[in-house]
């Protein structure tokens, strides 16, 4: 554009020259030129500047477009090339400026003439106006330059792109001279060879920018290779910096291997140790030693013989002890036992003996404690002390101190042997009980009978507590009846036995075989089972409860029977127990009584040992019954009767006419008392009243707000009434706007609980995306009291684990491991709830707009 303008101005100038004709002096021409220059000087300067900056060499070549230069006919000739120009074309403006400055008004006409002329030519020939332009320009023009030609003031030819020097210009003078042809050829060759043309280098800023672009890419690539490591680090629940801490040598071997001898002694030692010859010798010796290690035949035989000897000795000892055991002489054994007892070893070896010894010791201790025999209370000792003889004579003093010593040893408590627990004691009691029975079996039986009768007669019902409840009472009554039945049966049996002359029978029972045991035990157990059934029927609740109830009544009887015998017992009698089946009958009744009282279960529960014995006791009982079959049958009958009776009770309960009610009826009956809906409504009203309290009704306080009697007639002051009305309205409004106003079955409290408020956040904390996630994050406790020790550590582990005093090195590059991800999954899926992870992983790789991730 600039070039064009200039061309047009120069053209104008030329035209001016041509048309105007007047020969102006040089000075005027100069001023005119100066006047014109500033017009375009800005642009020119700019251009030069920009040229300098960009060194746009191509712009000159591009100045003349190809279609204009018409080098080839690729472009169609444009018909109205000039006509298209609009009126306000820039040229015109520029020219008008020029004209104004120059004050050449007729320039317009000249221009118009030219245009008209070309138009005419065009119309005649039909050729483009450019053709005629060229024609017109071909006219010789004379320019006078104000300044000498230089790079800052180029000639017009240069500016127009016409007067460029070419190779031909240089060649022209030497044409026809020798060597010209050669030169010509070479030049033409060079001109053809476009490859060898070296372009001008890019300007420095441009070059550097390109360089930086390349570097940027490389640096980015360099950074990108770290991404996987950074991502892994960021996503890890814990980063460890306390690893790979080498604390020097780890083993003694490692330390020893690094040992360097320093002192003379160490050096000497080292020289000896490292001597090859010595080493070889040692190796040889070692081999010899190994050879020596072999066991010779003689040694082996010796060893074998020794073992054989020992075995034979053992065998002989065994034989001897067998022989001694066979000896029947009581005196021998008694003497032997005494010997054994005397030796402390004996006490240690035999637990029975130890126990006996302990008992004796205890007795002695008690005696000592009671009598204080050895505590210088004797007549002699008192006398000695009162007279001060013990000080005077060494012998006396020694004797007294000896006495005291004896006292001390005797009264020392022996606790090592006393290992009986409470249950054992009770066991013993029972056993003692049984043991003492042997003396007076008939008496005991009689006593038991008495007790049974007593229990049968007095069946008192407790007045208070759980047992006083009607259904409990009923159940107890049933049970009592049953028990009484059994007790009666037992009594009957007892009477039968008595009638048959119990003593004889009992003696006979001692030698019966155990063949028919089963029937008898079954018989004994039958009533128990039936009772159990009844239990289940009457109350499905815990059977232990009612058992206790009965126990209160009946176990006392058992205890009473046991009580008189309690003190007379001796432990050794337990052994004898097995033998005294002489008076089984008494025990059977006793057992039955127990059964009848209903406390059998309890007894069984705590005394397993006893039950064993009981089964044993049952044996003779059954035998006695078996002997007399007739009676047996009777008893069976009675038993069956009892069962029937029990059954009778059962049936009586179930045989009542009973219609199964319908479901609705049942429900109605079940919830007969409570009107849930009504209750709820009441409750809701209460809540409403509490949260939105009803306004207080204005009360006229006498003397307040009154001046005269007249006012009294008016009643409440209007403002009070109005206020009350307002408050009421407000309340109804409040009630209507409540959330639960329309929900009939719901109460939504709108009261803010201040205490609970501190446990809520006002907004969702930042890293969390939803309320659920946030709440979930503190759902499970993490403390050591609430979690197993194995996971507490991982639950509480901080995000960065480091150790004071361990230098942390910067990150080292590792190649991404494709298998890593699979391995990583496991530790990450551990218990630690990490809400940040969800948010992080998504953002982690977003290079562009990745926001900073927050630590949760």
């Amino acid at each position: 554009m600039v070039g064009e303008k200039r061309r047009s101005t120069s053209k104008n100038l030329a035209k001016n020259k041509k048309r105007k004709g007047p020969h102006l002096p040089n000075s005027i021409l100069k001023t005119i030129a100066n006047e014109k220059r500033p017009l375009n000087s800005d642009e020119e300067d700019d251009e030069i500047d920009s040229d300098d900056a960009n060194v746009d060499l191509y712009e000159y070549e591009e100045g003349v477009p190809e279609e204009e230069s018409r080098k080839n006919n690729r472009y169609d000739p444009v018909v109205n090339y000039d006509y298209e120009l609009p009126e306000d074309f820039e040229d015109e403006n520029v020219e008008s400026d020029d004209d104004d400055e120059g004050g050449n008004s007729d320039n317009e006409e000249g221009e118009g003439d030219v245009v008209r002329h070309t138009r005419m030519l065009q119309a005649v020939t039909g050729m483009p106006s450019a053709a005629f332009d060229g024609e017109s320009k071909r006219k010789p023009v004379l320019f006078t330059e104000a300044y000498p030609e230089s790079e800052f003031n180029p000639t017009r030819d240069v500016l127009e792109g016409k007067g460029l020097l070419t190779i031909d210009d240089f060649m022209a003078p030497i044409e026809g001279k020798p060597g010209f042809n050669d030169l010509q050829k070479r030049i033409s060759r060079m001109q053809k060879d476009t490859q060898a043309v070296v372009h001008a280098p890019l300007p420095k800023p441009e070059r550097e920018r390109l360089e930086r672009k390349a570097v940027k890419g490389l640096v980015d690539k360099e950074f990108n290779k770290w991404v996987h490591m950074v991502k892994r680090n960021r996503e890890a629940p814990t980063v460890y910096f306390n690893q790979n801490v080498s604390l020097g040598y780890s083993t003694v071997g490692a330390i020893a291997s690094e040992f360097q001898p320093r002192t003379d002694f160490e050096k000497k030692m080292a020289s000896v140790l490292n001597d090859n010859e010595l080493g070889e010798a040692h190796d040889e010796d070692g081999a010899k030693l190994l050879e020596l290690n072999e066991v010779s035949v003689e040694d082996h035989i010796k060893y074998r013989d020794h073992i054989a000897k020992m075995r034979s000795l053992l065998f002989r000892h065994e034989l001897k002890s067998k022989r001694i055991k066979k000896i029947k002489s009581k005196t021998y054994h008694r003497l032997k036992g005494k010997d054994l007892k005397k030796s402390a070893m004996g006490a240690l070896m035999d637990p029975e003996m130890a126990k006996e010894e302990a008992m004796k010791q205890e007795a002695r201790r008690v005696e000592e404690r009671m009598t204080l025999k050895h505590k210088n209370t004797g007549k002699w000792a008192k006398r000695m002390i009162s007279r001060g003889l013990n000080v005077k004579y060494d012998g006396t003093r020694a004797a007294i101190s000896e006495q005291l010593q004896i006292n001390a040893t005797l009264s020392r408590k022996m606790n090592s042997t006393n290992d009986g627990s409470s249950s054992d004691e009770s066991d013993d009691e029972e056993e003692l009980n049984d043991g003492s029975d042997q003396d007076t079996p008939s008496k005991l039986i009689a006593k038991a009978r008495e007790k049974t009768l007593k229990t049968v007669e007095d069946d008192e019902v407790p007045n208070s507590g759980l047992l006083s409840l009607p259904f409990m009472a009923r159940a107890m009554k049933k049970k009592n009846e049953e028990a009484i039945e059994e007790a009666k049966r037992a009594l009957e049996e007892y009477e039968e036995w008595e009638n048959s002359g119990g003593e004889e029978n009992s003696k006979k029972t001692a030698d019966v075989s155990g063949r028919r045991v089963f029937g008898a035990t079954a018989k004994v157990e039958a009533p128990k089972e039936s009772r159990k059934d009844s239990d289940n029927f009457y109350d499905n609740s815990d059977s232990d409860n009612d058992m206790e109830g009965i126990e209160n009544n009946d176990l006392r009887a058992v205890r009473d029977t046991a009580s008189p015998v309690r003190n007379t017992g001796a432990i050794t009698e337990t052994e004898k127990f097995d033998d005294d089946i002489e008076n089984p009958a008494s025990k059977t009744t006793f057992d039955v009584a127990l059964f009848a009282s209903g406390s059998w279960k309890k007894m069984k529960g705590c005394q397993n040992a006893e039950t064993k014995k009981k089964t044993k006791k049952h044996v003779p009982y059954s035998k006695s019954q078996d002997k007399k079959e007739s009676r047996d049958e009777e008893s069976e009958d009675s038993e069956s009767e009892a069962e029937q009776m029990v059954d009778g009770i059962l049936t009586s309960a179930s045989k009542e006419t009973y219609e199964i009610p319908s479901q609705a009826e049942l429900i109605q009956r079940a919830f007969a008392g409570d009107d849930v809906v009504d209750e709820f409504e009441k409750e809701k009203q209460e809540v409403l009243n509490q949260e939105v309290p009803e306004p207080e009704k204005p009360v006229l306080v006498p003397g307040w707000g009154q001046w005269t009697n007249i006012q009294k007639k008016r009643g409440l002051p209007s403002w009070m009434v109005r206020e009350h009305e307002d408050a009421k309205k407000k309340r109804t409004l409040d009630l209507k706007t409540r959330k639960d106003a329309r929900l009939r079955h719901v109460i939504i409290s709108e009261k803010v609980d201040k205490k609970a408020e501190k446990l809520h956040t006002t907004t969702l904390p930042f890293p969390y995306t939803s309320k659920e996630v946030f709440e979930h994050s503190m759902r499970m406790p993490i403390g050591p009291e609430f979690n197993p020790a194995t996971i507490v550590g991982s639950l509480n582990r901080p995000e960065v684990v480091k150790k004071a005093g361990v230098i942390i090195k910067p990150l080292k590059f590792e190649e991404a491991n494709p298998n890593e991800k699979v391995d990583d999954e496991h530790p990450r899926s551990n218990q630690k709830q990490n809400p940040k992870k969800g948010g992080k992983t998504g953002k982690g790789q977003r290079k562009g707009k990745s926001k900073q991730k927050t630590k949760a």
Partner: protein
Amino acid sequence: MKIKTLSRSVDEYTRERSQDLQRVFHNFDPSLRPMEKAVEYKRALTAAKLEKIFARPFVGAMDGHRDGVSCMAKNPNYLKGIFSASMDGDIRLWDISSRRTVCQFPGHQGAVRGLTVSTDGNVLVSCGTDCTVRLWKVPRPTLEDSSVSSENFIEPAAEYVWKNAFWAVDHQFEGELFATAGAQLEIWNHNRASPVQSFQWGTDSVISVRFNPGEPDILATSASDRSITIYDLRMSSAARRIIMMTKTNSIAWNPMEPMNLTAANEDGSCYSFDGRKMDEAKCVHKDHVSAVMDIDFSPTGREFVTGSYDRSVRIFPYNGGHSREIYHTKRMQRVFCVKYSCDATYVLSGSDDTNLRLWKAKASEQLGVILPREQKKHEYNEAVKNRYKHLPEVKRIVRHRHLPKPIYKALGIIRTVNDSKRRKEDRRRAHSAPGTIVTKPLRQRRIIKEVE
């Protein structure tokens, strides 16, 4: 009668040693412990309170310089050593544990502006306004050194005079190059008297330089034309440059994330950038009320420490907008340099009041040997506190910090100014056609442009 009792064998409950723990059995059924959450909340509250009670971050001051401390350098190979230099040309090596000067490095005529140590900890490089770069051989730490109180002086191993004054120096990680910042960025070798490489982009002087610890050939500089530039030594060319609204005083690379760097800006904020995309900060760390003078990353890469002209030291999480901790004392003046210790346990600050100060990185941390049980307890407390930190009671205690009056007031003013600005912006937006007023996000607001 059978009585049910707890029966435990004595052998199982007998400890082998008196120090052994008693066996305790727990039933972890949550239905048996309905109060567990309440218990933990209470514990969190207690932990927060205890943390406040035990927050005693100041360990001690190191006094000895006769002028303001201008720069520091930590020995990457030796925890106890820290180098510091002051405005009067004094360089000292301190023993942190005894807080005494181990030795001095006299020689600089003017202020020392840059100090750095090679990765092996053998060579100390210093430079300053006297246009010299000096290399010193660092004395090997021995047992005697710590006990002997006499200060010894060390002669420079090399002294290179150059054309311009220096503003900063930094050593390559595990290499033998170091870079100085002055009129231009220059790369030096230990054994050459003149720089091996020199970079210039624009005419303004470079005021800080920092090598990337992860990528030893990449370094970042900030210049007084408010620019931050990343260079690559292998390509011997700059890679990126951004121009910000205010000058960047210092730069720190994240040692665990080699692509990320944080710039301490004159406007009181720090800007974390991704080296691959500089036209937007990844995070703006605001809290200082005056220019941030220096910044140093924790070796864990999870937080960094900044020292500010507002006489405070702050510790920021690497991805958090606000500081986790503020340290200040009555006597501490403008902080010119800060360093995080190599084990991420301590923070050092050097200030105008000629003192170096040693702080704990975690204010309430218990120093010394901690038994495993104690450690577990601490961890549990921390975990519980962390879990309930969003609830108002705990939050209030955890966030509470005492501030010096000037900072508190300045914060108030800043808040007011920001509020009014925002209000104005809102109104403007409300009263103009939608879409005509575009607000830049905070992360881009202070960045003018990225230069190609």
